[in-house]
């Protein structure tokens, strides 16, 4: 509501956070803006180049490839994790000791540091000592994520699914628990099938939770860095080089600060744009 009674004291509560955000986000962001419009030729030699870096970055075919890769990856993540997470949540027990047990098991992947997740999968996928890789080889599948582009890509995808599907499942589970029992009773009396219950009761009531899940998973996967960096380092070739890795390579590897800064800003705008689109689309679906 816009017209609450104003209380200027409230600013005192916001102030520390505002300062923190200023130092942690706005100041660096301004630095980035600053870099994105200059070329640094030497320690004290800077030239204003206008939108040159933006133009250059946007025309870079490598960026185009990384962007497409990223889109494919993020959409694959959403397409797999949302239905899977929803499915898992529907199968979860509703009462008894099994509830806590399931919750703990599901939460485990979420508690592991991201670089450790990467390391686990790097080892798990190895054909010599990794359980997964060795098993696949034993089954006669020609699998090697360090050499084969598709294998590497799939490994990163499966890893992400393993890591983050539990989050979607937990969100959906909490949403399901919030549905009053009367709805299920009414459905039972109306003779509704399990599918009808899902379609007409559970799904509509989960709408808000699903919006949040989509946004979280999209943003996170669009910015994925640590895990593929640990497992594949972006390779083989550029097959698992997603946007953030491309950016790091540009900024840290090649030290092209100008283009890197320009790209950072474009990246930022992208994410904002996609989140906005998802938010409106999902909301509109709900309202029909």
């Amino acid at each position, binding site marked *: *509501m816009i*017209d*609450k*009674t*104003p*209380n200027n004291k409230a600013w005192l509560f916001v102030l520390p956070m505002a300062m923190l955000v200023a130092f942690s986000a706005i100041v660096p962001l301004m630095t980035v803006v600053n870099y994105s419009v200059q070329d640094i030729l030497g320690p004290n030699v800077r030239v204003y180049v206008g939108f040159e870096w933006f133009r250059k970055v946007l025309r870079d075919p490598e960026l185009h490839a990384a962007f497409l890769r990223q889109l494919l990856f993020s959409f694959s993540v959403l397409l797999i994790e949302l239905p899977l997470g929803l499915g898992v949540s529907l199968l979860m027990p509703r009462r008894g000791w099994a509830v806590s047990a399931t919750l703990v098991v599901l939460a485990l992947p979420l508690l592991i540091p991201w670089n450790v997740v990467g390391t686990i999968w790097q080892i798990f996928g190895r054909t010599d000592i990794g359980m997964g890789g060795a098993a696949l080889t034993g089954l006669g599948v020609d699998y090697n994520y360090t050499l084969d582009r598709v294998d590497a890509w799939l490994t990163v995808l499966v890893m992400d699914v393993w890591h983050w599907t539990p989050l979607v499942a937990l969100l959906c589970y909490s949403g399901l628990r919030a549905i009053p029992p009367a709805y299920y009773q009414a459905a039972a009396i109306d003779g509704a099938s399990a599918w009808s219950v899902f379609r007409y009761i559970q799904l509509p009531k989960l709408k808000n939770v699903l919006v949040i899940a989509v946004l979280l998973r999209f943003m996170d996967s669009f910015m994925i860095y640590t895990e593929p960096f640990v497992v594949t380092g972006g390779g083989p070739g550029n097959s698992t080089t997603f946007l953030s890795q491309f950016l790091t390579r540009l900024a840290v590897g090649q030290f092209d600060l100008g283009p890197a800064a320009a790209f950072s800003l474009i990246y930022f705008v992208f994410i904002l744009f996609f989140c906005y689109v998802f938010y409106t689309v999902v909301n509109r679906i709900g309202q029909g």
Partner: protein
Amino acid sequence: MALVLESVGKKLGGEVHLHPLDLTLQPGTMNVLLGHTGAGKTSLLRVLAGLDRPTSGKLLRDGKDVTRATARERSVAMVYQQFINYPSLTVRANIASPLRKRSAAEIAGRVRELAQQLRIEELLDRLPGQLSGGQQQRVAIARALAKGADLLLLDEPLVNLDYKLREELRDELRLLFGAAGASAQAASRAAGHAATVVYATTDPAEALSLGGTTVVLHQGRVLQHAPALQVYHRPASLEAARVGSDPPLNVFAGRVRDGAIELGESLGGAARVPLAGHPHLARLPEGEYQLGLRASDCRLRPQAASDLPVRVQVELREITGSESFVYVRAADTASQLIVHQDGIADCQLDEALTIHLDPRRLLVFAKDGGALVSSYHEGP
């Protein structure tokens, strides 16, 4: 603390919740906001509490503008429909929570006193979760009273309670704040805190039972602000009479001509009420009117010679043991009436019979706008 609202209005996203309204709440009074769901009761309470700022107008407290003051600065306490207490605190700590800057003995004494008033002394060491709904609401009310605020707001506090508990707590609230509680209020006024109580409800019976003054709200407008019984006997308009009637008011059209009210068109036959002999009807100018008559003023048996007999057909009969509600339709018309009488109504479904309307209790409203033209009750 007199609280004055000057053309206070409230809009939200193009939707009008409250049309600009003027209202004066006297210190130490019981004020019941009576209206249907969506009439603006909660909006008004929130503005009074300082939780929302009105979109127009101002609030004056003892002549001082407090429109922009926050809830914290206003000395208000509020009780909600839901039973809201601190779940991890005992009843004792819950009641004591608004009491600060006082000695431990003083706090303990005040808590005991309030617990006694609300009859929850035995529950002081329990947690809210262990109490029944009625007991939880008593704790919430005790906590609100403990604050000693100038303004106590109650938003349909009994609506989530079982019928019998509701009746019981309503009786006690009446003793605490209502007209009958005037002595208790006088005592607290002497002690320096006579709270102005504002109580929102949808139930006319509750407004009558609590007494005090009633503010009739409808579609964001104040229709009437008067003592509870006056709202019942002299409703300011047809709409106010409808809001304040349970069972619903019987309404029919009539025309004054040749010294009588002709009701033939709405009640069938040649039904007419002579103006002479009814002081409140005698001076009615000729013209068309809307007439209201409470269900309890329609009877199955005649009571006075002046009663107006109307041929009807019984559509439905509800009997509670102590009283009966008979839904009838006037013969050859579309007018539906409700007859409310004590005891068991001896009639059958679809039976054709004569009911008797008491013209001495007719409420006369203008045809357009429905403003009250004449009531059987003289008023103040």
